[in-house]
């Protein structure tokens, strides 16, 4: 499995740390309801098919990445830097 880091190019999966669903980007406000925090931290659509999740180029450039990929075929659809995504 390979991910194409926007800075480093295609690299083997072992260079990357997987965090989880991109839900982690949408951190609720400090005063949000407990249900919002439960959903943020725990509940997942967990789709068999195209998903968006977060990876870190741990052994590379240190970028956090938003990855679109397919959990059934393992196809990588796109890899973008979180920082650019957020900007």
């Amino acid at each position, binding site marked *: 499995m390979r991910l194409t880091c926007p800075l*480093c190019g295609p*690299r083997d999966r072992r260079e990357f740390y997987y965090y989880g669903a991109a839900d982690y980007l949408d951190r609720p406000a400090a005063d949000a309801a407990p249900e919002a925090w439960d959903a943020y931290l725990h509940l997942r659509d967990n789709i068999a098919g195209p998903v968006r999740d977060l990876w870190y180029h741990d*052994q*590379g*450039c240190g970028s956090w990445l938003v990855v679109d990929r397919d959990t059934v075929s393992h196809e990588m659809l796109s890899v973008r830097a979180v920082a650019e995504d957020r900007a």
Partner: protein
Amino acid sequence: MASLIETPPCGDLLPVIVTGAQLVELRPGPVLSIAPFHGQAAAVAAILAEAGLDWPAPGTSGVGGSLACLWAGRGTAFVLGPLPEPLAARLAGHAALTDQSDAWAAMQLRGPAAEAVLARLVSLDLRIAAFPEGAVARAPLNHMAALVRRSGADRFDLWVFRSMAQTAVHELKAAMTSVAARG
């Protein structure tokens, strides 16, 4: 007052020489990490330009006089060599500066077998078209975080964390022995 003696990271571990490849310690001198703050990349580049250095694009490195500048990660470059103090001082407001001179063990792997040796430890596409002279990558050397630069057709500069120098040399030596045995 007594002075403190310096101990190099690799010390007596190097050199290692086999048929087709040599591994020697590099002494790159001062290593300054430069990480520009938001919106400061252009200002930083302008200051570096005064030293004859280009801000390196990802995966590249450049040379300016006795200095070299290597891309070293997301929004980060390493300047190798003594950056004139006034320039360094001017960078301070534009970028996070840290002294990385002592953080790394630097070594050079060279010889006709160098690429084959490195292919035992590094997952990068090292073919010269994909990783030409001057190319830089942050990539693991087996299980160790590393920075790799191709400094010639048969020549690679390798940086690993100082504390892992012994393991790095040991693993490179094993790969060199194996490649040499294949003849």
